[in-house]
């Protein structure tokens, strides 16, 4: 601003008009404090209205919000005109919608943190439920000693089963997407694949679990329950997600890059491998990570394919396995000690918190991976 005034005063013969004290362009605007005054008034009236019907927090919040919404739009309309009044109404409606959407999330996080934190310790993380019986739980409740038994076996089961599901889904899903985008444009086969991928997206997870259980049951006999069967079930759920996200990422790679590569005399498969996929890899990687986050919390397909275990099993090709979701399910539904359920409940909440941490870590990794692989823009 200072340069402008010096410029003006430097020009001889051009008079600079004085700056008006009250800007006429800013006429008819509510002062900044007005909206806070309306909010304060709405809260007071809301509290009063809520007291009339028997005070509680929910009705207090709802009444205040409604009163604020109406008052703010009416007052703005009166002071600033119809257009700005409508603008105010929609702005505050959208804020309200945002708050409504966030409340459950905050509430879930708060509850899980509150109930899960006491049980989340190194003993819980690094020991299994092997040998932990109802008698052990009864004893720890009676003596007031810390809860014995943990979710190490379930953590390992979750990691191994998800790892195997990823190992199966990523190559299948990525190759399918490469075919759809790079080779199959307009062909009947690619239309059929797109259709079936869409259908697969809608498969209920228990059906995927039953499919895997039945499929391996047919090959290996009726009681074929092990980690790899669960991994196959999860990959049935993962593959469509991986195909879809990879397909979208490959589609947004500019065609010019493919043409540039072709024009250098590079073959199609090398172009895909060295130009198209590296350009899209950050999106593909975050898509895969989100697909993992999606299946890591599945319960039903694990129960029917890998069963339940209380001891550590690192071999996905033999014996039953537990994952965190099935661990939670089992602890809540059939507490280890039917008479003292508190230790089981505590373990379940701790496992839930751990599961949320794992999913959050995966989401963070997805962002990190995306930013690491993203094409550099440096100068």
């Amino acid at each position, binding site marked *: 601003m200072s340069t402008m005034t010096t410029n003006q005063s430097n020009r001889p013969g051009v008079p600079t008009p004085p700056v008006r004290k009250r800007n006429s362009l800013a006429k008819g605007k509510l002062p900044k404090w007005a909206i806070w005054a309306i909010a304060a008034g709405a809260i007071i009236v809301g509290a009063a209205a809520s007291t009339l019907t028997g005070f509680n927090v929910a009705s207090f919040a709802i009444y205040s919000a409604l009163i604020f919404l109406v008052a703010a739009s009416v007052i703005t309309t009166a002071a600033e005109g119809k257009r700005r009044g409508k603008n105010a109404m929609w702005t505050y409606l959208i804020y309200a919608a945002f708050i409504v959407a966030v409340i459950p999330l905050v509430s879930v996080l708060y509850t899980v943190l509150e109930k899960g934190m006491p049980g989340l310790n190194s003993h819980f993380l690094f020991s299994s439920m092997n040998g932990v019986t109802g008698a052990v739980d009864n004893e720890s409740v009676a003596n007031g000693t810390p809860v014995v038994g943990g979710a190490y076996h379930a953590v390992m089961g979750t990691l191994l089963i998800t790892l195997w599901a990823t190992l199966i889904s990523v190559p299948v899903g990525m190759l399918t997407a490469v075919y759809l985008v790079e080779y199959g444009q307009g062909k009947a086969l690619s239309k059929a694949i797109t259709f079936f991928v869409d259908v697969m997206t809608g498969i209920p997870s228990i059906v995927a679990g039953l499919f895997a259980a039945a499929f391996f049951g047919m090959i290996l006999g009726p009681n074929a329950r092990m980690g790899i069967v669960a991994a196959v079930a999860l990959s049935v759920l993962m593959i469509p997600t991986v195909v879809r996200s990879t397909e979208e990422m490959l589609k947004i790679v500019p065609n010019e890059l493919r043409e540039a590569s072709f*024009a*250098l005399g590079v073959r199609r498969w090398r172009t895909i491998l060295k130009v198209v996929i590296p350009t899209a890899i950050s999106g593909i990687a975050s898509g895969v990570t989100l697909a993992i986050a999606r299946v890591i919390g599945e319960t039903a397909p694990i129960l029917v394919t890998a069963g339940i275990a209380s001891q550590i099993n690192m071999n996905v090709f033999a014996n039953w396995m537990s994952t965190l979701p099935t661990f939670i399910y089992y602890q809540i539904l059939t507490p280890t000690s039917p008479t003292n359920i508190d230790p089981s409940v505590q373990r379940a909440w701790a496992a839930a918190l751990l599961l949320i941490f794992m999913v959050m870590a995966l989401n963070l990794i997805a962002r990190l991976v995306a930013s690491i692989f993203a094409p550099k823009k440096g*100068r």
Partner: protein
Amino acid sequence: MAKRIDVNDLNVYYSKFLAVEGVSINIEPKSVTAFIGPSGCGKSTFLRTLNRMHEVIPGGRVEGQVLLDGDDLYGAGVDPVTVRSQIGMVFQRPNPFPTMSIKDNVLAGVKLNGQRISKSDADALVEKSLRGANLWNEVKDRLDKPGSGLSGGQQQRLCIARTIAVKPDVILMDEPCSALDPISTLAIEDLINELKNDYTVVIVTHNMQQAARVSDKTAFFNIAGTGKPGKLIEYNDTAAIFSNPEQKATEDYVSGRFG
């Protein structure tokens, strides 16, 4: 190096649609040939048939002959990949590979094809190609930086360096300056003049002054109306096209009285 191109009665199709009809043209080695004409007249489409890039588009096909020093590009058993490694192409929008450094962009033709190249040979090739594209002095201190960080004009010269690094016989340019400012355009035009010493250059341009400045011969393409195929109207020395065209349509176009 620098081969001649002879096209005999070429028809270019998009599926059933005839886009360019009956083009016959002889392009001399070590010359610059400019294609001019209104938008949609098929000059870019025709250019892309000269290194078989046209068939990359689904449904793209041609009838007729394109001879590179007597070898038919569309003959039986000809691998389009071989054709494209001998006839390079520079596109309208600069398109360096965003995942690669400046150096890797220049070496793209070698590295993407999986050929092994020693470090000293690679460095020599990078320097030679970048010097050939008049870009060496501007980027020699930041060869490991991404190519997308360069200015538009530099990116386009990087694309030219990338093209000449595979040692083609012919370089096709599809409106190489239309996305660039006048100074970058001048740099590219100077470069085209130098490239002429070693390569056969074919350039599509909307800028008639540019055609007049850089080319030895000019071909004028036109289209009778939408949905009709584009045709080669006149092909002659650039001076003749601009000062003394034989066809009325050419005269109208170059004098700005088109349409």
